[in-house]
């Protein structure tokens, strides 16, 4: 009745200034050169970063799939626990997020390094000696740090909760009478899962995938810390152009723009795929 919607106007203005205008600036930078003229130069060389794009997408894809493969069953199992247990487990999943993620990732270095905890453990257990004796090799450690595997591990580690939480919260909300209805209509437990639980949990899966894939494809910390900087990702590439060793914000903007477009396409395709009209953003 009253025009109460005006309460939202400051917000809209704020978001326009601090979200939309910056994005427009990114576009603007992407199409200009350091000297100020309009140019497509920044996109012309994009081909040479193909490998970075490919690697980023691939690693993020791997991390997302692994998160899904771990996160879905975990959410499902969690949803079967009693309510008290559920609360505790969910708390335990969120708790690590309260430790700075740089530190947690850094701690993985201690674990994975050549002289790290795992290798030390294996050495002190005499595993390496044993292997060396049997296969007549001379290994003293398993190389884990500074590999792409380590980067994926870091991604999975950091973003797994973002997969579990949305899926879990969708699954627990599934009305148990739907499951009973399906059983009533002759569905065994596998069929119930396939035809009811899984399709109904899709919105959670989609939002989980988004919440893992987007940060994974754009991270620059994990690759720096666990990847040794030998195979950089899109995030590193962008960071490098703004505050790093190869200053060129125009190129950086162009790469950002393309990354944004790729992310948008991925999400669009995925939503099509899942018919996810009701895309859930769950915190």
């Amino acid at each position, binding site marked *: 009745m009253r025009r109460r919607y005006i309460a939202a106007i400051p917000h809209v203005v704020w978001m326009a200034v601090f979200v939309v205008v910056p994005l427009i600036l990114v576009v603007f930078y992407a199409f200009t050169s350091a000297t100020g003229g309009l140019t497509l130069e920044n996109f012309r060389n994009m081909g040479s970063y193909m490998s970075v794009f490919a690697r980023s997408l691939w690693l993020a894809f791997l991390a997302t799939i692994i998160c899904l493969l771990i996160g879905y069953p975990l959410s499902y199992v969690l949803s079967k626990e009693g309510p008290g247990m559920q609360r505790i487990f969910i708390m335990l999943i969120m708790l690590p997020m309260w430790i700075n993620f740089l530190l947690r990732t850094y701690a993985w270095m201690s674990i994975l390094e050549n002289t790290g905890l795992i290798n030390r453990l294996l050495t002190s257990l005499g595993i390496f000696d044993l292997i060396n004796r049997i296969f007549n090799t001379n290994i003293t450690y398993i190389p884990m740090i500074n590999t792409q595997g380590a980067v994926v591990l870091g991604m999975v580690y950091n973003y797994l909760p973002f997969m579990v939480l949305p899926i879990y919260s969708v699954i627990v909300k599934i009305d148990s009478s739907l499951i009973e209805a399906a*059983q*009533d*209509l002759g*569905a065994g437990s596998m*069929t119930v899962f396939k*035809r009811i639980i899984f399709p109904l949990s*899709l919105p959670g899966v989609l939002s989980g995938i988004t919440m893992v894939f987007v940060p994974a494809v754009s991270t620059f910390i994990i690759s720096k810390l666990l990847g040794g900087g030998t195979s950089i990702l899109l995030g590193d590439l962008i960071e490098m152009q703004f505050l790093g060793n190869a200053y060129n914000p125009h190129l950086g903007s162009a790469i950002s723009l393309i990354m944004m477009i790729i992310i948008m396409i991925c999400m669009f395709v995925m939503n099509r795929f899942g018919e996810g009209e009701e895309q859930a953003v769950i915190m």
Partner: protein
Amino acid sequence: MSKEIIRLKDCTVAFDDEVILDNINLYFNDKEFLTLLGPSGCGKTTTLRIIGGFLKPTSGDVLFNGVRVNDVPPHKRKVNTIFQKYALFPHLDVFENVAFGLRIAKLNESEIRSRVMEMLEIVSLKGFHNRKVTSLSGGQQQRVAIARALVNRPKVLLLDEPLGALDLRLRKDMQIELKRIQQAMDITFIYVTHDQEEALAMSDTIVVMDKGRIQQIGTPEQVYNEPKNAFVADFIGESNILDGIMHEDYVVEIFGRKFKCLDSGFAPRESVDVVIRPEDIEIVEPHKGRLSGTVTSVTFKGVHYDIIVDFKGFKWLIQTTRLHNVGDEIGINIGPEQIHIMKKSEYSGMFGDYSSYSAEYEEITSEDWEDETEGEEDEA
């Protein structure tokens, strides 16, 4: 309407030592419309869930056609259920909801198609097969739920307050519709409701339950006209319930006066509960009645007036189509066939007294309320 197809034998269900169903014995006949009627929480849904296989009785047996099926999981039972809130699958459209059971049974596509379409026609939803179920009205969703269950051609359909969520109008229409479908498909309906009018209008057999126990089983007429105890009498329609004493067969004493009745078989001078329905009382001139009293309240109800009459301190509810005024002196007569005698039960004295009615309504003392809360806590 004769062959027995389901039987519950001494079924007891307890959750955490709380007895929810107490030694239920019940059988269901083929092609029967049987209604479980009772107040909220009396165990109706629990009974259905035992039959559906979603719950195993703590003790006792469930027999289908004489075979014990306690351990048969729901998806292997040849019964289908319509759930309290439909439980339609929101991610599937109307067609796929109805086709669900057929797909599980792996029928071929063309047969599925024809059976679903036929079913949708039966429930008057032709042309709706592509709609999202969430976009349907309550009544339409109800029909989808019915179609989804019936398309599997079950021998028995369980319906858990299927009309509970609908408004009065739609509810009346759907009652008629359901009854029609049951007759058309020629199958057994086991129907749950707490609405006595609904139960009376639809059922072949009514099972009245309270506190996990069966109170009475009978046809609607039997249950209404010959209630077994005060609970049944009160739950199925308004009733005046009085203390009486059986003098001999066919003679009962109420308020010190003897009335003829049709009941026999009681011990001499046995205390009994006497039920008299408000519409069964004939109002006559004061001096012509067996009893005479004063009108203390009148409420217009459209079809009739509800009047409260004070007979020597006990207040009766009488329904009459003629207007009387507060303060009028009236006499009443009650025919023998209008007097129903019941054995005393745990419910005696709890129902059927209209002293606290209308303008006479006494203030509820806070003690009453406190009592109530205590009762609750006992339960918890």
